[in-house]
């Protein structure tokens, strides 16, 4: 079409011009009043393009009076004007195309009105104005049914995401670092399938750089994001799309006039409000009161006090301080975000280059994320049949993790010490602080992603497409811990990881329309078939060395003490991790096809099928299949609806499909061999006896029904999309323990099943929509989803499966059929005993309810938590008295966006919410637990660390009998803690509701219009904006932020807080 326009333009300018009049004018954006360059002007009668507008939106044409002119530009509504005067200024309104939008589904463009699957759309415009380290942060609350929790504030890290609930059962790790296997969706960036995690798993101990693809992609370059939620929409993406698919399309050049657009901002990251602490004398008084008043005996208390020199020697300058440790770790940072895009071209050839840079320093010192990216795209159409497009994306992410840590435990909460100790000065240093300031943990990720797409139309309607893409990452991680901060032992750690994915897709697509002029009047068929081949390789190497010669000699790298066992100083406790944890190549081959038929675009039927085979799947099931079907009825187009003028469109969708997700890999299906100790001076090589290989492993499958309704009323004033779904994920793999007669510890088995069902609603309302483009406009969009997850089966017909979390957390988890898939398995705390007489007495044995089954006198008494004695044996014990409680999954999430615009101003307030989620306040638990050793600077115990005494007046603790409202036992308990552990973590005392309402973002925009300086500087559009991000979190949760918890809902004392950021920026187009 564009080609035609260009040709006609050429023709027009030379052809006869005698009967014509000269018409001039300017085409502007209805909202911003800026000129639109490159608008095609079409002579309607002749069906030919006659002109395009220039860089400022001006045009000038010669045409007969009375003819109809059509102004057309991508992204705007078409406008037809009859030539009646010499100057015609046209305002184009942004298109609200609703169902006419083109969506790329299964790598094929389709109009939204013929899509049968459930999908949501995010426009790139919604993602501007906030410089964030990870794009994921901006997607929170934008899509009904997509649950994103940004559970760390560390720049460049990712949060957790799940679409339509969790679909995993395997848990690993312990306590704060316990995590559920990933439910991440597949990411498709510009038609290239990309691993969402970028090779990161959620584990604390993951060795890599932990920078995913979404962290490297600049939001400014995004045209649109499409989220496919149900089986039909995701089926063509195959097994990797079983958890949903996120398709990101970056911008393309589409203007004949080159456009240079730039978006620059300065932003300030501000740490959240620090906690009030008891410092100096107040801390000393607390410690003395606790030791003398709550030790086993006065004599014992006096001994402890005498030995705690830092308390008793109060006149010593070294111990006579009131240091604000928190303030020394946090900082406010000033950062920049810059994006420059050059694009242009026409339908025959267009190009785009996007350059982005962001410096994002974290609120904890020595942490931050810098990223650089270049995205170049070129599309060519040498003739009407051939289309060639190519892209090269290169990005470099530079992450400083400071003192190290994983995805959640990378904050500083563990390092705050006693305020009595002196702060850093010229003569004094402090290891915990030095560790944060001087330890090096540099993580670099280089990503190169490229694709070449060739599309050839063999004959009308039949297209041959081939796409080849390559996505390559290099991750490096260099750590050096200085001796001073690490028990006088240096630590040198190096990680190198290389990942690559080569993907080739070849297909044929045939499009048949019985009425080519108007698809709404005939039969339309789209048939497509493609094959996809995929080679992934992943190679990781780690070298670690402890106790090097000095802080200034960072080597020798590559020297592995494992091979020199005679040197105990290097690796005394065998802590070093050396070697190649991952080295694998993975091949996959897929066949896919689909048929989409519709009659008058009113009745749509989609059938699709895809089978995936890969080199690591179990021997007995090489291929996993993904069949799906969908129907759609655009009832708004029915004749009986025609006279309902208030209805813009209405359609009912239904889909059903099965997605398979291969879970087998070399380890769990084929097993691995290991070198064991020598036997008879011969190296013994035998199977590794941890995981028994299971060659019969089958793919995990999910079967999903979806019914949806899309309706729009009153010319877009009220639009909603409702979806309800029922998804059963079955054949789920779980690690099952084996009896020791097998010789192995465990095996992975199919057999688990989860049902997720829910309702999703997305509404757009325009309560105030002025007819004038610069009048007052108010747009409210809201979305929400409610869902339930239920465990319906466990492998081997089990009814209940306990995840035993050992010391020091003991926070067991239960997976029980008929309940939410993951539940806590804890002691239930029901208040606090107000007096000794409230403690139940065993009538047979004549003693009180006591702690443990051993014959010890650890009886409960006034001030102790009331733990439910489930089996009534007057003995509190993990085995019998734990109860299944709570659900770490939220029951509902959603988002709310309000946009007000008036004249040149626009204000956007974006909020998101999470409702009903049980989180465990482990941070509070460890804080209270650490108080129980007032005579120590550092708590030496399970979840030990330095002790910083928070303002205990803010803690609602039990003081004496009658404190009915007290939430926690007495914080002064010293001896009592050793008796009954009142602050143990495995109890519901620390389980709280994690519902929150978060004001994510407030943005104020100002558009400069028609200023003289803009004309002189040839600035086409200029916009200033200011944004506050992470504005506030409203919650009843007692901890700092209910979102900053792990996926299983544990609040880590060492979490990285979410910073608030203030941004001032401008964007301009030239």
């Amino acid at each position, binding site marked *: 079409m564009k080609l035609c326009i260009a040709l006609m333009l050429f023709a027009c300018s030379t052809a006869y011009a005698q009967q014509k009049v000269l018409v001039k004018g300017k085409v502007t954006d209805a909202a911003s009043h800026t000129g639109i360059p490159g608008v095609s002007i079409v002579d309607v009668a002749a069906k030919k393009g006659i002109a395009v507008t220039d860089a400022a939106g001006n045009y000038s044409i010669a045409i007969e009076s009375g003819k109809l002119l059509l102004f057309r530009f991508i992204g705007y509504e078409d406008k037809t004007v009859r030539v009646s005067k010499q100057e015609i200024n046209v305002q184009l309104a942004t298109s609200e195309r609703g169902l006419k939008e083109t969506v790329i589904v299964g790598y094929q463009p389709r109009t939204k009105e013929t899509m049968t699957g459930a999908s949501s759309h995010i426009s790139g415009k919604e993602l501007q104005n906030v410089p964030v380290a990870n794009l994921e942060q901006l997607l929170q609350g934008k899509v009904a049914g997509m649950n994103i929790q940004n559970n760390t504030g560390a720049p460049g890290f990712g949060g957790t995401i799940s679409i339509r609930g969790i679909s995993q059962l395997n848990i690993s790790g312990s306590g704060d670092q316990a995590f559920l296997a990933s439910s991440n969706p597949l990411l498709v960036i510009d038609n290239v399938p990309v691993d969402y995690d970028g090779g990161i798993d959620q584990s604390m101990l993951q060795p890599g750089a932990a920078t995913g693809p979404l962290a490297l992609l600049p939001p400014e370059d995004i045209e649109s994001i499409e989220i496919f939620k149900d089986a039909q929409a995701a089926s063509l993406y195959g097994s990797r799309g079983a958890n949903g698919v996120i398709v990101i399309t970056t911008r393309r050049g589409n203007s004949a006039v080159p456009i240079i657009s730039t978006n620059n901002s300065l932003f300030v990251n501000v740490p959240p409000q620090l906690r009030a602490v008891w410092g100096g004398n107040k801390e000393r008084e607390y410690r003395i009161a606790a030791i003398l008043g709550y030790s086993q005996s006065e004599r014992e208390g006096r001994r402890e006090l005498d030995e705690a020199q830092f308390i008793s020697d109060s006149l010593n300058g070294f111990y006579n301080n009131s240091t604000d440790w928190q303030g020394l770790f946090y900082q406010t940072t000033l950062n920049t975000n810059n994006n420059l895009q050059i694009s242009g071209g026409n339908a025959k050839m267009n190009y785009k280059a996007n350059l982005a840079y962001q410096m994002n320093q974290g609120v904890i010192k020595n942490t931050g994320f810098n990223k650089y990216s270049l995205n170049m795209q070129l599309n060519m159409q040498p003739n009407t049949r051939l289309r060639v497009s190519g892209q090269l994306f290169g990005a470099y992410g530079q992450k400083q993790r400071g003192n190290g840590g994983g995805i959640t435990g990378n904050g500083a909460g563990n390092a705050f010490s006693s305020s009595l100790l002196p702060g850093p000065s010229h003569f004094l240093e402090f290891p915990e602080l030095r560790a944060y300031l001087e330890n090096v943990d540099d993580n670099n990720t280089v990503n190169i992603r490229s694709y070449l797409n060739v599309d050839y139309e063999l004959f009308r309607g039949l297209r041959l497409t081939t796409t080849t893409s390559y996505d390559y990452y290099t991750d490096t991680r260099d750590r050096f811990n200085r001796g001073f901060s690490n028990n006088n032992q240096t630590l040198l750690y190096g990680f190198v990881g290389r990942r690559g994915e080569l993907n080739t897709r070849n297909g044929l697509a045939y499009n048949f329309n019985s009425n080519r002029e108007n698809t709404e009047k005939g039969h339309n068929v789209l048939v497509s078939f493609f094959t996809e081949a995929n080679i992934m390789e992943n190679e990781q190497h780690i070298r670690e060395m402890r106790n090097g010669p000095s802080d200034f000699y960072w080597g020798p790298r590559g020297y592995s003490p494992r091979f020199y066992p005679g040197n105990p100083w290097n690796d005394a406790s065998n802590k070093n991790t050396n070697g190649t944890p991952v080295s694998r190549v993975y091949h996959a081959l897929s066949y896919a096809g689909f048929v989409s038929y519709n009659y008058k675009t009113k009745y749509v039927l989609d059938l699709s099928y895809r089978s995936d085979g890969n080199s690591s799947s179990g021997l007995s099931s090489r291929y996993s299949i993904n069949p799906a079907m969908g129907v759609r009825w655009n009832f708004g187009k029915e004749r*009986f609806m025609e006279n309902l003028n208030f209805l813009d469109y209405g359609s009912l969708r239904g889909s059903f499909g099965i997605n398979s997700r291969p879970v087998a890999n070399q380890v769990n299906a084929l097993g691995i061999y290991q070198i064991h100790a020598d036997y008879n001076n011969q190296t013994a090589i035998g199977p590794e006896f941890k995981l028994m290989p299971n060659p019969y492993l089958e793919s995990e499958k999910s079967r999903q029904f979806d019914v949806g309704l899309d309706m729009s009323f009153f010319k877009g004033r009220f639009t909603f999309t409702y979806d309800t779904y*029922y998804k059963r994920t079955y054949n789920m793999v779980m690690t099952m323990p084996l009896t020791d007669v097998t010789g192995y510890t465990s095996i992975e088995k199919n057999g688990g099943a989860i049902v997720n069902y829910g309702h999703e609603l997305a509404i757009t309302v325009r309560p105030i929509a002025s007819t004038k483009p610069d009048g007052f406009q108010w747009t409210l969009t809201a979305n929400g989803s409610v869902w339930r997850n239920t465990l319906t089966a466990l492998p081997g017909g089990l*009814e209940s499966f306990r995840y035993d979390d050992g010391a020091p957390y003991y926070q067991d988890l239960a997976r*029980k059929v008929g309940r939410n898939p993951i539940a806590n398995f804890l002691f239930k705390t029901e208040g606090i005993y107000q007096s000794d007489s409230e403690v139940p007495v065993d009538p047979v044995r*004549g*003693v009180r309810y006591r702690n443990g*089954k051993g*014959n010890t006198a650890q009886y409960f008494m006034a001030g102790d938590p009331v733990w439910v004695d489930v089996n009534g044996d007057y003995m509190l014990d993990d*085995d019998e008295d734990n109860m299944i409680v709570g659900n770490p999954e939220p029951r509902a999430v959603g988002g709310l966006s309000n946009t007000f615009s008036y004249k040149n101003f626009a204000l956007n307030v974006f909020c998101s919410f999470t409702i009903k989620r049980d989180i465990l306040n482990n941070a509070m638990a460890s804080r209270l637990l650490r108080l129980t050793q007032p005579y120590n600077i550092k708590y030496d115990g399970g979840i030990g660390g330095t002790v910083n005494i928070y303002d205990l007046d803010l803690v609602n603790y039990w003081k004496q009998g009658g404190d009915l409202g007290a939430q926690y036992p007495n914080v002064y308990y010293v001896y009592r803690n050793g008796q009954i552990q009142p602050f143990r973590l495995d109890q519901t005392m620390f389980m709280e509701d994690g519902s929150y309402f978060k004001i994510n973002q407030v943005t104020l925009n100002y558009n400069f219009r028609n200023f003289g300086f803009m004309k002189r500087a040839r600035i086409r559009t200029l916009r200033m904006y200011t944004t506050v991000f992470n504005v506030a979190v409203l919650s009843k949760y007692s901890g700092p932020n209910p979102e900053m918890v792990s996926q299983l809902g544990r609040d880590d004392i060492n979490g990285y807080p979410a910073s608030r950021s203030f941004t001032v920026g401008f964007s301009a187009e030239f």
Partner: protein
Amino acid sequence: MKKNSITIQLMAWCSLGLLAGCYKDTLPVEKDYMSKDMNFKKETFVANLGRMNVFADIFNADYSTQPLQFELQSPRIDNKTPAPILLEAVDTRQWKDYYTGTETSVAEIEAKRITVRRPILDLNSQNGQLVVWPVDSTKLPYGKYFFDVKVNNKAGERLFPGLMLDLRRPRPYEPYEYDDVTGIRKADNAGGIIRPSTISNHRDPQGREIKAENVQIYFVKTGAAANTLTFKFVDKDSVGIPISTFNIQRWDSLYYYSKMAGRNVRFGFNRNIPADSMSVTYDITNPFPVLAEAFAGDELAEYIFSYSRVSYGYRVVGRIGLKFSIHEPGEWTVVFRYMINPKFSDD
């Protein structure tokens, strides 16, 4: 036309509503879980007549859903003859308030106890804890009894058949010299003679050390009028040794450590030393110590008598004591008999 559209809309909405509403019906309801590995940790319960026998923490529920219901079924003797007598209710002494160890009289302790009618073989229906209440052999002959326990929760039920109650002869005190199966006195070197649990610095006039095997202890029940405990010392000729010999015994503050009360507990009440100083008598509870039967083996009282003498210029403290418990009510006398006469006077 319009009506038609409304009907269609209505139908669409209703079907949607119906669909959404019946999701729950497709799901399994949460059931109670009963582990197949749930079991009794032991299947033979050795109990003695004449005292309370507590078997706590004997059932491994293996995380089966609580509450579990336990039911004792078909008690029988020798695995064939029904023995309903095991389920016959008897008067039992239970606690309404807990024993602190700071009580100042027997009456104060007794006031914390109440009489409850319970079956002789008492299975706790909630956790499977088993209690055999004190009865004497006239009511229930000793022997091997069998019974079954049915455990159920909402997931189903399981029968644990053939649990054995090995009911033996009474052991009126501990340590007891007689075998509770045969009734015959044990061999001399296997507990047939009660020896002191503590003895030190006892020497005969020749200066040879007197060891535990040179002392015999007898428990003698002298009456049933009250619950008392009397200590007596005799030499090898059964001639009484006055308790004033134990010259550094602090008679006014004698305690034993009660493990389960977690403190030192006063040794009996109403100490009575007759004028001839040949014995010391206390009023005691039954059983003695108070928690001796609730925590068998862990709750024993230890009484240590000490004396001081000068031996060749050194002052030595001689000690002799016994860790014991008494289960049969009555007036008990514990006699320490030195088979070699120790020297109590200075050298």
